[in-house]
């Protein structure tokens, strides 16, 4: 009887769910670098959400004089077709962070940008492969690592080109490309974490209890490997945005009509003699978003590993 009451006592003393969530999140604000990074990322998220409801002008309407420098009407100027750059820049956030366009004429969008879905799938595939390789060992480990070695051997841009040459263009293809290029890195990370966690006593305990392998993998190991995986995911979103920009620049990225930053640079560089601003703005946008994610990940990693030293 006394045992039951003491556990009940402990329950009430535990922090509420909101409190424990906040104590997890507040770690971000203990690092100045992470806070700055988060602010930069949050800025673009907010810009993207605002652009869903309002932009100064329609992003695809060519209603102004071409190649204007920044002025009071078009704050960032206009591009080679007389479209307002600020509106296009704002809308350009959507395809990366906020929406993915499904193929077909219906024009259905699903929430979550191409970069986020790409990283999500690379995490999913990478985590499943890495957990199995690390925990089961032996032949599983050998064969999974062999396949991953083959995938890592591709320079990622060559893999993008190959995938796009084979599957054509589209949002989903870019997601596949990001997932395929990202998965091996995630799998290696998860595998090394698993190899470490596998030796802990609570895993022994779970094995002794007779838990299934899947329970041990996804309920015991994965939650304990969460921190480094999340930091890695942040960096990967940065790489993904970088890659989307590069593909857009090469003219094989996200298809029109939605503006895409990389493609904006590509189009604007043809008129660079007349109007340099049109190149500057999307370039700054990509760079700030990527730097923001990098800083956020760096700061987070510093905070997470502080107590491990």
């Amino acid at each position, binding site marked *: 009887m006394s045992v039951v009451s003491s556990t009940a006592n402990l329950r009430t003393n535990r922090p509420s769910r909101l409190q424990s969530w906040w104590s997890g999140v507040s770690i971000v604000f203990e690092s100045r670098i992470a806070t700055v990074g988060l602010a930069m990322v949050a800025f673009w998220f907010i810009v993207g959400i605002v652009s869903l409801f309002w932009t100064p002008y329609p992003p695809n309407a060519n209603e102004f004089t071409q190649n204007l420098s920044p002025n009071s009407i078009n704050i960032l100027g206009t591009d080679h077709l007389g479209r307002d750059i600020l509106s296009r820049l704002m809308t350009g956030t959507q395809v990366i962070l906020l929406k993915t366009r499904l193929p077909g004429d219906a024009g259905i969008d699903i929430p979550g940008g191409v970069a986020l879905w790409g990283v999500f799938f690379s995490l999913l595939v990478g985590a499943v492969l890495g957990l199995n390789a690390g925990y089961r060992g032996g032949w599983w480990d050998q064969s999974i690592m062999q396949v991953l070695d083959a995938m890592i051997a591709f320079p990622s841009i060559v893999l993008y080109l190959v995938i796009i*040459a084979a599957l054509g263009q589209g949002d989903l293809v870019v997601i596949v490309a990001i997932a395929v290029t990202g998965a091996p890195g995630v799998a290696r990370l998860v595998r090394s974490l698993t190899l470490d966690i596998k030796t802990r006593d609570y895993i022994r305990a779970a094995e002794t209890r007779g838990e299934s392998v899947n329970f041990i993998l996804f309920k015991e190991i994965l939650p304990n490997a969460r921190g480094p995986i999340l930091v890695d995911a942040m960096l990967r979103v940065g790489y993904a945005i970088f890659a989307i920009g590069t593909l857009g620049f090469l003219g094989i990225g996200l298809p029109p009509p939605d503006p895409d930053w990389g493609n904006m640079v590509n189009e604007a560089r043809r008129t660079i003699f007349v109007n340099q601003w049109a190149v500057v703005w999307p370039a700054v946008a990509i760079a700030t978003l990527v730097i923001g994610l990098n800083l956020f990940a760096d700061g987070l990693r510093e905070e997470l590993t502080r107590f491990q030293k």
Partner: protein
Amino acid sequence: MARFLLRSIISTFVTVLLVSIALFFLLEVGSGDITVKILGVFSTEEQRASYRAQLGLDAPPWQRYADWLIGNDWRAASYTGFPLVTEDNLQTGEAEWWADVNGELARWTMEDGELFMLTRQPDGSSNQEPAAADVWQIGENGEELFWGVDTKGNAVKWVRGAGEPVWVLTKAGLRQEGDGPRQYIPLRKGLVRLDPGKSLQTSRPVAVTLFPRVRNTLILAGVAFLVVMPLALLLGIIAGINEGKWIDRVISITSLGATATPEFVTGVFLILVFGIWLKWLPAVSVFLSSDAIFQDPKLIALPVLTLTAVELGYVARMTRASMVEVMDSAYIRTAIIKGMPYSRVVLRHAVRNALMAPITIIMLHVNWLIGGVVVVEVLFGFPGLGKYIYDAAIFGDFNAVEAAAMLTVTIAIATRLVGDLAYTFLNPRIRYA
């Protein structure tokens, strides 16, 4: 050590094999009908089918994979009954396929139902005469058939009196001809014998067109490497020993900015500054001859600068992190407390250990360099391997993409193997039993 070496070499071979399978099936089986691209969207279904047969695309995928990897001349030779050999065309310098008929090099052509044998003369021309009547063999269904080599480098099966109408692609467009063969095997020596086939876009052998591109890229990447490495290591070390001071802040922030700025953006700005405003350097790399790179080294100045700007930050950051870690360690503290001159501590004790990590990681990151090279080459119109892959991928020219991609993968894997080995030699703490 020997066991470790053997294991990594076997594993490397398996990796390359897996890569080749993935590449081949993704591109050739996964991609759509390439003949639409070659013949145009207004070509008819019949024309496309004829052209597909001429490319040998009607064969089953596993067979095409084997042909691509290890060649099919030996398979075709078993049909023709003659050894098949390649001989350089004296005018173009490119290899042509001939059948070795009792010491004479021969090819065949069919005109108006008549089979002619073309015999190669020592001066490179060929002598045409009607083929002997006894070359025809009786097939399973009683038809008279003949396996020979045609003038386009295919092993083909002719059936007497039953020529197939074929659509031949000429410079002027498609032309229909009668008397075509029933079956084609486009002859190739295979990837392992360094013949990845013909480009679908230009109909020239991939190996011939790829070589100068690879040379150009090696020059570009090599020069960039020589510029980046000393500079980046130096900056990284300076930032590392001054951790937290303003000079570290400046180097760190600049290198983060340089790394986070995509290479195409850096390149565009460099073009703007040096090519357009200052007019110091050519803004695009136009190659008027294949040796232009040696005649006018200025052509690669901007591409090299762009690559430098992108790679510099990455390597400098890595070196800095490694340097900071080493400078924190106990043995450096001991050396300083011992009263050793600071410069000696840094140069003799810290740098040697700190450079181990960046140098090996650089070897492992050749993949990354190749990625940068693709973008830079496309941006500057530099005729290198990266632009080759890009152009081929856009067209869907899978023969060219496969060859170039296999090459990059092989380079990446080879440098990784070398990096692994270098690491074990450099780092005395790692020994493989």
